[in-house]
């Protein structure tokens, strides 16, 4: 009798642990947005889209403007006249789509520090563990892989 009750309790605990663990996995997925996708640079370029995703320039433009997301206008001047006060820290991005190809743009959005270690530009998509002392609410890449592709697609329209 005692044994069977203990076994039942143990089983119940196992099931509970499994449920909690799965819920945790699911939630952590929700918090961090998505699984990190490894990428590899070929020289100063990442020729292949992250995870083979297709970018959308219209969404990319929104990411570029959003102060809590890409916030590119903090430093770069861009052909987005409806937004006031573009930053003067970084090079203007007018015509950047003709100066750099898609793969070169992708590496610069993902991790410009590979091109210039002294750059002020944050890495928008490096291994989450490689950010130093991130706040617990921000233990992820700045942009998702999809957002990176959207931004690259938008930059490619700046001819």
């Amino acid at each position, binding site marked *: 009798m005692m044994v069977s009750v203990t076994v039942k309790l143990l089983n119940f605990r196992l099931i509970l642990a499994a449920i909690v663990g799965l819920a945790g996995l699911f939630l952590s997925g929700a918090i961090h947005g998505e699984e990190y996708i490894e990428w590899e640079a070929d020289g100063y370029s990442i020729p292949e889209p992250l995870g083979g995703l297709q970018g959308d320039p219209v969404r990319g433009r929104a990411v570029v403007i959003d102060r809590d997301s890409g916030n590119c206008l903090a430093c770069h001047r861009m052909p987005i006249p409806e937004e006031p006060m573009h930053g003067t*820290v970084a090079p203007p991005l007018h015509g950047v789509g003709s100066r750099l190809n898609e793969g070169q743009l992708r590496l610069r959005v993902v991790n410009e520090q590979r091109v210039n270690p002294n750059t*002020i530009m944050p890495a928008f998509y490096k291994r989450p563990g490689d950010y130093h002392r*991130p706040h617990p609410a921000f233990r*992820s890449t700045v942009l998702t892989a999809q957002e990176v592709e959207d931004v690259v697609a938008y930059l490619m329209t700046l001819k």
Partner: protein
Amino acid sequence: MTKCFMQIVPFALLMMSGSLFALEPQSSYELLSEDLKQMQDDDFANPGMMTVDRGQELFQKPGFNGKSCATCHGDNGEKLDPEQIAAYPKYDSQRGPVTLQSQINQCYADRQEEFPMLYDADELIALETFVRYLARGEKVNVDISGSMREHYEAGKEIFHTRIGQRDMACVHCHEMYAGQRLRGQILNQAQINGFPIYRITNGTIMSLHEKYIGCYGTLRAMPYEPGSQEYIDLEVYMNARGNGLPIETPGVRH
């Protein structure tokens, strides 16, 4: 001969770029609008003076054993030496680098037989504001020789380390691109000669370590505690980096 010269030129240029980043210290006061400059300069308009007054009251308030700061240092702190105030943080062989605030706290605990206050307690910030105000105009002069050197270097390391998800270091905005615009905001050199400051945006007085915590938040980084060794080292480095700037406490800033 020319060939040899041509080989030296690029190296000489590289070495020069290092010295280009070593800016002349400039107080962020210089970047304020005329209105805000006037507000800071006029004691009747400067809201930070309310904290100075509060600090002075606390300075004269007797502690557990009936003594107050004023008992030794004079009713208006006239026996304190502005030159010494401008020399903080100072190195103590037992306690390491001692900030003005920790010195006030230690003195308060020892001489008034009180429990020490928490770092950045309101009363402590008020006392620090009052004492530092006594040295207004005195040039910051922090000695980083001897054992202080390693704390200066540790602070410098923090200043140059990328933090948080925003993945930037203090040096990027406040040295490499000082004077440039980040959206609508002109980047200052992050000189700390006006601290504790009155912040117009918050409508409150703000200590240096509270400001550090604010910056860490902006960079989406996990801040250190007020009074932590990291922030004290940073305070040592940033003071020494601005040696020669006049103390402006209470500074008025956005």
